[in-house]
Every structure is written in structure tokens, then in C-alpha cells.
């Protein structure tokens, strides 16, 4: 008589399809997964602790290192929370540029997701295609902020600087071309029998379970829940834009793929609407207590120099209180909960990372499936360890 025994398999932290330093301890019965124990924290840098020792201005560069595939979405969530505490309004032009950049960020993040997800389950060509388009967005990033990933571009009250004149034509051309590129990806994947076999019916999670696990973003919409913060609890002027919120039906990996592709098309539409609204004007609020003075004044007058020095060295006091600001980041709801004690440093800053909460459902989604299908589930959850571990 033969006996069977359960096997423990270690996956990661150095494993190309765990998308970073995620370690999963799998318990296997043959090739079927019976238990998954995720082990996280390899990238823990203590961002929440660090931010208690920095002024509000100095915290900003920490935020774009959380989800490093969507830096401007992280910047936006933090800046909106600070602006809510300060209770200041942002000029129209700054708000429009913020929308353009966060939607390009969504495209960028989804392109990396598509590239890696497809590569993980064997479709290498898509990887090369998606990174070709991502490069254009990286060039736009570099053009306006000087950095390809760590943008650090938004400021409380507006933007760090206005965009150069070549920004608008470059973005316009990109969003014109992008739907054609999306057709190319779809031509490679949407009806591809191998792709369908790997994704349809894999990683199923029902709408009730998805809400119970707190899943947000495309993963929640793929399970048929019509919920998008940009439309339902609008922020940063999203209430003035019209766009569709795609919803899946079968709650599986394939539906989440389709939801994200429609989201990319909708992001192009939002950028187009924003470009129509882009009019010349100031990009910083008229709030000298908070906003840095213009460089001409810093270099040419002693008052300007002192003004700059005061904000740079002491920061600005923020009214006492606590606010929570959630934004629809590419991966789900990214929330910043800031408690201010009236000083120029946050008393407590909590980051609610979408990937951390979404990853928790991985056991629910892939218990009872094959090891190879787990790779597809990691891909479809679209996690980034930088924001899980913080």
C-alpha cells in the first residue's frame, strides 16, 4: 500500500514571478495547493515611522517610493490629504495637469502589469510591446519632473513647476496612438487559446468574498462590484470628467484582464478631456505660508531668500486634526490617514496600501489550484512589494 504525504514548497523571495521579494510557503498535495502562507516584510523601511520625523514637505519623496510603478498616484494621495488638512484650493491648471499625470501613471502601471503578467504565463512578445509604450510615459515623466520614477512632482498647493511647452503635443500624440497599441495587445491575447486556458476560471473570488477581504481596484471590479473612487467619492476634480467604469462578470483572471484593458482605454479618454481643459495659468496656489516663493524672488531679494529658507528649514504648521484621503490608485484604494498635532510634522501618518490588503486574499483565490496557476494569480492581483512592506 502506498502512502501520500503533503509537501512544503518554498516560493521566493528570489523568484521572478513573485514580482519582488514576496515569499510564499506552499503546502502541496501532489501539485494541488492546500495552504499558502505569505511571508512579507523583506522591504520594510519604516516609512510611517520616518514620516513622523520629517516636515510635510520632506515626507513627499518617501511616498513615490511606495508603489514605484505608480509614483504620481502615491504623490497625489498624500498631497490631497495634506491639502485637506490645510484647507487650501489648487489652481485649475495644476489640477488638470495632476489628472493628466495620474491617468498616465495608471496607464504606466497597467502596462507593467500586462507585460509581467503575460510574461509569467508565457506570452513574451507582449512584454516587449508594453515596455515600448511605457518608455514614452517615462520620457514624459522625465520631461516634467527630471526623474523617470521618483517623480516628487506635486506640491501642497499645486505643482513644483509648470510643464514645458513640448509636454502637451507629446501627451496628445501618445493618447492618440495608445488605443491602437491596445488593439495590438488584445490581438495577441484576448482570443489566444493558450491565454484563455491559463486565465479563464482561474483565481475566482466572488463579489461578497472580495468585499469581505477588502479588495479594491480592478480586482474588485473584476468580481462584478461597480465601485470606483474617482466616480463614487470623487477627489482632485474627477467629478468633472466622464468615463466608464468597467465591471467583470465571472470573477476570474480573464475578467480582471479585460477590466484593466478597458480602464486603459478610459484613461486615454480622461487625458484627452483634460488636454481640452488645459489653459495657461498659475500652477501654485496663492498661499505664501505654504508655497515656496518663485526662484527670481529667492535669487534677487533678501525677503524672498528668507521666505524660502523659513519654509525649507521649519516647514509650515498644519492645523490640528485628522483626515483620511483615499484615491483610486492603479492597484486599488490607496489611503493616507494623517493625524496632525498642529506642528510642521505629521504626528502619525498611516498609509493604507492596496496591494497589502489585496494580497491577503491569495489563499482564498488559489487554494485547490495548481502551482502553475498560482503564478497567474500573483500576476492578476498586481502587487508591488514596495507598498506592501512600506
Amino acid at each position, binding site marked *: 500500500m502506498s502512502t501520500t504525504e503533503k509537501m512544503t514548497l518554498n516560493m521566493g523571495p528570489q523568484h521572478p514571478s513573485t514580482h519582488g521579494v514576496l515569499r510564499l510557503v506552499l503546502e502541496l498535495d501532489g501539485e494541488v495547493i492546500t495552504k499558502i502562507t505569505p511571508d512579507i516584510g523583506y522591504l*520594510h523601511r519604516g516609512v510611517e515611522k520616518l514620516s513622523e520625523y520629517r516636515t510635510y514637505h520632506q515626507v513627499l519623496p518617501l511616498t513615490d517610493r511606495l508603489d514605484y510603478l505608480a509614483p504620481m498616484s502615491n504623490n497625489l494621495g498624500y498631497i490631497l490629504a495634506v491639502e485637506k488638512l490645510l484647507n487650501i484650493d489648487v489652481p485649475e491648471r495644476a489640477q488638470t495637469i495632476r489628472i493628466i499625470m495620474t491617468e498616465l501613471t495608471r496607464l504606466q502601471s497597467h502596462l507593467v502589469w500586462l507585460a509581467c503578467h503575460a510574461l509569467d504565463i508565457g506570452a513574451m512578445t507582449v512584454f516587449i510591446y508594453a515596455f515600448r509604450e511605457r518608455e514614452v510615459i517615462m520620457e514624459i515623466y522625465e520631461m516634467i519632473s527630471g526623474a523617470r520614477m521618483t517623480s516628487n512632482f506635486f506640491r501642497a498647493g499645486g505643482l513644483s513647476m509648470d510643464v514645458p511647452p513640448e509636454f502637451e503635443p507629446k501627451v496628445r500624440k501618445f493618447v492618440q496612438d495608445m488605443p491602437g497599441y491596445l488593439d495590438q495587445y488584445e490581438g495577441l491575447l484576448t482570443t489566444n487559446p493558450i491565454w484563455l486556458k491559463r486565465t479563464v476560471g482561474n483565481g475566482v473570488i466572488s463579489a461578497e468574498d472580495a468585499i469581505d*477581504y477588502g479588495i479594491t481596484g480592478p480586482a474588485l471590479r473584476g468580481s462584478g462590484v461597480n465601485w470606483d473612487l474617482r466616480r463614487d*467619492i470623487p477627489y482632485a476634480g474627477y467629478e468633472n470628467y466622464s468615463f466608464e467604469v468597467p465591471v467583470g462578470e465571472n470573477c476570474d483572471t480573464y475578467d480582471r484582464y479585460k477590466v484593466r484593458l478597458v480602464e486603459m482605454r478610459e484613461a486615454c479618454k480622461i487625458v484627452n478631456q483634460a488636454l481640452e481643459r488645459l489653459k495657461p495659468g498659475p500652477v501654485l496656489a496663492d498661499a505664501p505660508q505654504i508655497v515656496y516663493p518663485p526662484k527670481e524672488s529667492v535669487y534677487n531679494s533678501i525677503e524672498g531668500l528668507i521666505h524660502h529658507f523659513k519654509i525649507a528649514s521649519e516647514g509650515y504648521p498644519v492645523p490640528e486634526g*485628522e483626515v483620511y484621503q483615499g484615491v483610486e490608485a492603479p492597484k486599488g484604494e490607496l489611503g493616507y490617514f494623517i493625524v496632525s498635532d498642529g506642528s510642521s510634522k505629521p504626528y502619525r501618518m498611516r498609509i493604507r496600501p492596496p496591494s497589502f*490588503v489585496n494580497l*491577503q486574499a491569495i489563499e482564498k483565490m488559489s487554494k485547490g489550484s495548481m502551482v502553475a496557476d498560482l503564478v497567474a494569480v500573483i500576476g492578476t492581483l498586481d502587487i508591488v512589494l514596495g507598498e506592501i512592506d512600506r
Partner: protein
Amino acid sequence: MADNNRAAARLKEQFPSSILDITEFRGETAVTVLSRDILEILLFLKKSLRYEMLTDLTAIDYMGKKEERFMVVYQLTSISCKERVRIKVPVAEDDCTIRSATAIWQTANWLEREVYDLFGINFENHPDLQRILMTPDWEGHPLRKDYPLQGPDREPYKGRLS
């Protein structure tokens, strides 16, 4: 005002003796309640007021600033009514225990583990209460205000020298 908020008004009716404070700031409502009835209140919010999703669960360390040192904070979202509410629960340092919300939301599992890991607050009846971000043999709870920024065995940070 704060009383106009649906959740705040209903909670006041239902649990008059456990509500400590209701505040509104920048359009957000926060209800401070006693830890005694926390699960009943959360369940009431989920079942009767349709706050289906636990968006976030975290804690604040008010060392030396408030009578009860810790504050556990729940951010709830109602998908059907497009609303949010914040529930806050003071937790004393010497007891440092609160009942776990894992029976109500699966989300609470990892979020409570994180609060346990970084603040050292215990969650009663949690199925798997162990550290999540720090290593299992780590000593201390990094997000407490008396935990030094540079770590326990190093020179304290003296600010920038320049």
C-alpha cells in the same frame, strides 16, 4: 453638523452609553466609542447601516498626550451608500487588548497583525496573531512613540548636522 451624519445619529440612538465623542472635521465624521461594545457596534454598522467594507484598521500612539495611550482606528466604507465613517476606540497601555474584528471582516486579519506587530496591541480571539512586517524574533514595537527611530541599540538621531 456631525449629527447629520447617518451613522453617527443611528449609533447615538442604538448605543447611547458607549459613545464618547462625535467629531466632524473637513467633512469627515469620527465616532469615538468604548472598547466594551466595539464588536457589536461594528456589526451593527455592517449589517444595519451597510458599511460593508473595512477599508483600514490602524492605531495611534498618544503617549503622554491622552489618558488612554492608544487609539485603534477603523475606517469603514459603505459601497451601497457611497459614504465613509471612522470609528475610534481608546485602549489603555496596561491592558492593551481589544477584541478582534476578524469574525466580521476577513480584512481585519492582516491589518490587526500589523497593529500587533508595530504597536503591541493584542487582539483577543484573533486566529493567527503573530508579527507580519518585522521578523518573528524582533523585540519592541517600532511605531510606539518611545521606540527610537534608529532602532534600539544605536545612537539616537540628533537631527541634521548642517
